[in-house]
């Protein structure tokens, strides 16, 4: 059963991803991407990583996609068809990507140690929280702190640039 669902999801992900990167309409692309992200959260749920699935849905599908949509709106790209790139580039990119993908998949398939099986466990939200705040071996408090600074820095960076936009506008007027 899960296998069937997985394959459905997999086809959704791949199909929608392909559509997302090939469609001529930018807004549609964002929508396809949204569906991809949602499908991916399905995979998380399927793996019984519910917290991950939730995060995926809320942060990605909820947060990041909104940013994208705003950006698309702000840059006035809804109706415009996207310029097509040259066939040469497509061919080259296709060859490289497919080749790399084939290579990677071959590597994955031939890897010996990958079929170990473990007893299934369910990760609870509490466990994750505990781990995130633990400074013992296996804990992740340091990354947690670091990413806070990172987010702060990214935020400041984004704000500064956003502010600059205003300044540019002022300057323009």
């Amino acid at each position, binding site marked *: 059963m899960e296998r069937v669902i997985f394959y459905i999801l997999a086809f959704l992900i791949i199909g929608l991803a392909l559509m997302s990167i090939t469609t001529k309409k930018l807004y549609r692309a964002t929508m396809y991407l949204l569906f991809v992200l949602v499908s991916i959260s399905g995979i998380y749920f399927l793996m019984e990583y519910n917290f991950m699935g939730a995060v995926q849905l809320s942060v990605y599908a909820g947060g990041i996609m909104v940013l994208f949509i705003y950006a698309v709106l702000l840059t006035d790209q809804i109706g415009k068809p996207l310029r097509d*790139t040259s066939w040469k*580039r497509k061919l*080259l*990119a296709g060859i*490289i*990507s497919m*080749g*790399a993908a084939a*290579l990677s998949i071959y590597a994955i398939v031939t890897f010996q140690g990958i079929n170990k099986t473990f007893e299934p466990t369910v990760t609870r939200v509490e466990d994750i929280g505990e781990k995130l705040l633990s400074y013992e071996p296996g804990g992740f408090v340091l990354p947690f702190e670091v990413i806070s600074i990172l987010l702060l820095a990214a935020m400041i960076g984004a704000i500064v640039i956003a502010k600059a936009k205003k300044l540019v506008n002022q300057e323009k007027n």
Partner: protein
Amino acid sequence: MDTFDYIYLIPLIPLLMFLFLGFTARKIKEPVSGYLGTAGLLAVFILSYYTAYKYFFADGLVDGKYQQIRVMLKEGWIHFTDKLAIDIGIIIDPISVMMLVVVSTVSFMVHIYSLGYMHKDPGFSRFYAYLSLFTFSMLGLVLASNLFMIYIFWELVGVSSYLLIGYYFEKPSAVAASKKAFIVTRFADMFFLIGILMIGYFGQSFDFMTLNSESTISMLNSWIANHQVASFLGLSVITWALILIFIGGMGKSAMFPLHIWLPDAMEGPTPVSALIHAATMVVAGVYLVARLFPMYYHIEGGAALRVVAVVGAFSALFAAIIALTQEDIKRVLAFSTMSQIGYMMMALGVSGFDGYEGLGYMAGMFHLFTHAMFKALLFLVAGAVIHAVHSNFMKDMGGLHKYMPIASWTFLIAALAISGIPPFSGFFSKDEILMAAWEYNKIIWFVGFIVAGMTAFYMFRLYFRIFHHKDTQYEHPPHDAPANMSFSLIFLAVMTMAVGFISFSEYISASLKPFHSHIHWGSPLVIGSIVIALVGIGAAYLMYYKETEYPQKVAAAFGTTYKWAKNKFYVDELYMYVTHKIIFDKVSKPIAWFDRYVIDGFMNLLGVTTLGIANRIKFLQSGRLQDYAMYFVSGVVAIIIIVIYYK
């Protein structure tokens, strides 16, 4: 033999004089520098004669053999190896002492003569400095105790000759002549040097006494006999080395085919021509062969000496033919010099070694001695004439006998001497040469015989055309030279008359042992040579005493031969062709081109290629974001593939 310790003073005095005059050339004015130089030479003159006296009459002869005395001044001036070294030393033996006398006499006379000749010349002091330099070098050359030292002074003589020929350095022809003289002799010196290197390599010494010693010669001969040394064209390398050394002598002594510089060298002031290009430097080659005579004679049965004889004879004939046709009086004298040196070479070449067999050697030296006197005299007279007439060409002269009696009479004495008319000195030396040649090879004798006649002819052609021939009207009536110049002329004339009576063989011989030789007055050889000389004089008298049609007729009769002789057989042109057209244009120019455009071009090409590649690949940095990403991803893929491939 500490009594000869003062000998180093002989070259040293002119050297100091040169340095002093050289440094003060622009401070000290005219007569002073001349007097200084002359005074210095006077000292040398006295010392030389004192040495000659001391050597020949007091110390030299020990047990019936003249000693070779070596005075070592600096041992190991350069140490090449433990055995091979350049020592600075002086050798005193008959020929070097004789050369001392020759050099100091002629040089002293030229110094005195130049006081008048160079009067009011702007470079007066410089001239005397050069003269001192030359005298130093020449004295050093004759006194040198080893091959390398002789080479050193050889070069120094060359350079002083260069400086003196180019004395009038604002005259392009003088500059060209000096350059030519230096380069031609330098070319010969290259062979000389190679010869020295070879001799040094085989003989393990540069010292004359060692090289000429029986032990060295027999060692070398045994090597040759046992084929221990390489041979080339049938002659052993050691013989070749001697021939190479002889080539060096050929260069200095203007032997065919390296004679081309000598006529041009007449561009220098006439006293210089007298000193360098008649009496002293040009005989250096003869002296060199004489110095190494034991080697020349003994090594491989005297193979090298045969070359000397042939070259000498040919040069004598060749130059005499050219001398017949020249119009420039100094050139006539130059070719005459060449011819006479050929004679000397020939004499050495035909000589044996011991006792009377060594007549040729003695005669060559004798002729060197007498020739120095009369040829210097001839040049100095020519200088006086040129000084008076302001021209070098016979056509501008004539009838000078009444204007310049001293010049005329002294010239006549010298001309008689060179023609071989007894009792003038030239007769004795020349006759002995012919005698030696007769005993050696008849063809060579015949050549010498013919040349004697030619010599008499062209010398009297010269004499008559200058002093008689026609009554030329001169703008400024010429007159005899001033006292100082005339003194030299007279002194040398006296010498010319006197020296013939020295019995040379008592003093100089190849084996250092004196022997007795005398002229067989009645022998056909002697008579023949006097007759041929008289014939030459008579012919000249007929043709040139008065203006006649004969010269043109004779010239016409000889046609092409005359034209070739007049143009010196086009040897100069051949040289010009080889140097300019072949070496300069066909070798040097391509090399210069090759260097600029191929080698340098290659280096530049490296740079240009690098820049070119840089410009060609700039498209990689296209500025397109996705290109960059593409490179990135393909780079990753490529690396993966390479790793997999090589793993």
